């Protein structure tokens, strides 16, 4: 493949959104977890909850800040690189993303500030209420993003007038059936991501024999929540598969690496798809299972890629593997959370060091599942940017040159590398240090400047040489 503005813009968008999604995915779950333990503390008065809350709050603040900054960059991508998309679908995508921005601002401007700074200034009940509102806000944010993306996957409620796409039914666009499946799928993924991270942090402390009470609580809560959520997530994953089969059969065939129409269809468990020759190498497949997975019986006919015109087919390799990695991560989460709860029931969870190592090692499972899930959805949607309406290659800004996009891509990679390593390093330091009494006051922190919370609480008392008089 030649480097042209279209391919480079796709790589750039993929790069930027991959490094964006990991932060909101983490903060959606973290906000819910913070609200929950704050509620538990309010109900029981247990100081352990307060210590755990105070420990995760700066981590939440840093991740939230990183999400905001990487999100601002995203807000300009549609215009800089995808100008034709912006003009043709701006009347629908613009307001949806506008509402996401509104939600995020409302959050930053109001309850997030209370959550960061208001502990001693508002009543405990109002503080708890603020935590709940922040959690709700992060979920609403994801709602609008998913509404936008679901519309790009399965466009509904619009009309095409003079080559432009005009909204006709906002209810269909915002609350369409596909959105009602994909949004819960994403929300559950975010909650599971955080569950696995919280469990892994707890396991890490137990392995290092530090912060025993806090670590134990994180382990129990994290694994407990994951054990409950993962079956629900598998169910919503199944529903997501149904929409793909119904609305995007070519994507479904690509995920299954099914080249020929088959009846009954076999299921390719693992293989190396050979796109040039339209076949699978080293395939391990189960006869008839493909029909069962798609249609619920062992006899149905399933469409292969051959039944789609070549120019309408998505790439196979990435959706095929990304989907399998995502499912694999889901199964790892299932195994770890259920076995962990079994050990807990037998009273052996804290003493099974090998299992604590497994839990610790599974901290990235949620992130990997989210990224590979999105790669499946987005690359599987190709060659369309808005399915059936606008092709990706026709959506790019016409004035862009290869040099422009190559420059911006390199610059973004370098800047993100610096920016994200500092953010991740900050979070790592907070995690490594663990819960402790944090009494140092912070100043000039506002809801729109959350990074300062971590920066200041983490700084030594004399961290500002020359500043104290």
């Amino acid at each position, binding site marked *: 493949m030649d480097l042209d503005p279209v391919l480079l813009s796709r790589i750039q968008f993929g790069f930027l959104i991959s490094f964006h999604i990991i932060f909101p995915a983490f903060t959606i779950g973290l906000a819910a977890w913070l609200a929950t333990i704050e509620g538990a503390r309010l109900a029981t008065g247990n100081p352990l909850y307060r210590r755990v809350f105070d420990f995760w709050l700066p981590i939440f603040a840093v991740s939230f800040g990183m999400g905001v*900054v990487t999100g601002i960059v995203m807000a300009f991508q*549609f*215009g*800089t690189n995808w100008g034709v998309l912006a003009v043709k679908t701006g009347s629908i995508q*613009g307001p949806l993303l*506008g509402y996401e*921005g509104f939600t995020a601002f409302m959050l930053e401007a109001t309850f997030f500030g209370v959550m960061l700074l208001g502990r001693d200034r508002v009543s405990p009940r109002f503080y708890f209420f603020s935590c709940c509102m922040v959690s709700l806000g992060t979920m609403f944010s994801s709602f609008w993003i998913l509404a936008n993306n679901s519309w790009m996957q399965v466009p509904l409620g619009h009309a095409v007038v003079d080559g432009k796409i005009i909204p006709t039914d906002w209810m269909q666009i915002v609350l369409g059936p596909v959105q009602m499946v994909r949004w819960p799928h994403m929300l559950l993924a975010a909650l599971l991501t955080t569950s696995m991270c919280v469990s892994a942090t707890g396991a890490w402390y137990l392995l290092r024999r530090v912060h025993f009470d806090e670590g134990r609580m994180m382990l129990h809560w994290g694994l407990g929540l994951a054990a409950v959520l993962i079956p629900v997530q598998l169910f919503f994953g199944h529903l997501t598969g149904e929409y793909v089969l119904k609305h995007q059969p070519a994507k479904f065939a690509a995920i299954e690496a099914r080249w020929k129409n088959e009846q009954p269809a076999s299921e390719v468990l693992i293989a190396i798809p050979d796109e040039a020759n339209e076949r699978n190498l080293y395939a391990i497949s189960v006869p008839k299972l493909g029909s069962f997975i798609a249609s619920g019986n062992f006899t149905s006919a399933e469409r292969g890629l051959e039944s789609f015109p070549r120019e309408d087919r998505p790439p196979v390799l990435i959706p095929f593997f990304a989907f399998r990695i995502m499912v694999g991560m889901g199964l790892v989460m299932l195994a770890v959370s259920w076995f962990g709860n079994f050990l807990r029931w037998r009273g052996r969870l804290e003493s099974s060091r090998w299992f604590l190592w497994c839990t610790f090692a599974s901290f990235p499972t949620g992130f990997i599942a989210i990224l590979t899930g999105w790669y499946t959805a987005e690359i599987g949607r190709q060659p369309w940017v808005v399915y059936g309406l606008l092709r990706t290659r026709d959506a790019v800004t*016409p004035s*862009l040159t290869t040099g422009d996009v190559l420059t911006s891509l390199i610059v973004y990679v370098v800047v993100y590398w610096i920016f994200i390593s500092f953010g991740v390093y900050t979070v790592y330091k907070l995690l490594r240090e663990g819960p402790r009494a944090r009494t140092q006051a912070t100043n000039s922190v506002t809801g729109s400047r959350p990074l300062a919370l971590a920066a200041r609480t983490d700084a030594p008392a004399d961290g500002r*040489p020359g500043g104290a008089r």
Partner: protein
Amino acid sequence: MSPAPPSDLALFWAAVIAVSILVYVILDGFDLGVGILFGTTREEQHRLHMMDAIAPFWDGNETWLVIIGAGLFATFPVVYAVFLGAFYLPVLLLLVGLIFRGIAFEFRYRSVKTRGLWDAGFFLGSTVVAFVQGAAIGALMRGLPVANGQYAGTSFEWLHPFSVLTGIGLVFGYALLGAGWIVLKSEGDLRDWAYRRIPWLAAAVFVVLGLAFAVSLSVDAGAIAQSHLKDRPWGWVFVALAIATLIGVVIGARARRDGVAYTLTVVFIAASYLTLGVMFWPYMVPYAVTVASAAAPEESLRFLFYGGVVVLPVIAIYTFGVYWVFRGKVRSGY
């Protein structure tokens, strides 16, 4: 392109975006300006107080930039696409500059060894952001080539000598605003330091913008001759007001009146902004895309309107609230 007048909703959103741009320039302008001045002193004490003077505000100020971007995408998608397509590399520089400023702000306190690096990042980031914004204004004054609702020029058209001059002009303009802000928020040494710079900065703004004006009249006839200023002679009132306020800034600074420099610089910027408005109206992208032709369909404008009437006042109140809480001089060592 239909000559139909813009709808009420289109006018509403155009007004929201126009006001947001002005608010952005006035608010982020002072903290970018402080960042620019930050690079002109080596004294750690000054630098600390400068940081403290903008610490609670700078990030919230950038909120307005996102409102402008998201608002344009939703309500004037053609403008959003043409603008970001035409200014692809400047927008990249703008985002990178803003990110570096942000990192520098949070990390300079925490590091001693790498502080020089963060300080350079803070200064350069601020300067680059100011410059590309000014250059974009200059390029807009010269007019953007548009075909089929997309930018039809080349990648470096924005880097015309005229735009370079307006870019430098805005760097000085923001620095002037920043100096006024420092005067407003500080006492003692730093305030004297800022006071001494105000007349020079005002003179620099005047000279650079005057030079740009001369260039546009002689060497490159595009920028001002084609504007609508000639059909609207009353628009020269704003030009006169801008020049008068610039003189007022210098007088106020000599008289050591703390509030005058910042306030009058704000008036100067508003007057310059209104001059641009007189030049451009009814075009959003001079001289190719009008408010009416760029507006999204009524269904979209109305759908977003319901959210906007709730959220925009909240953002305004919040902004006001933050400035109220952190009002007055910055006390050192708090």
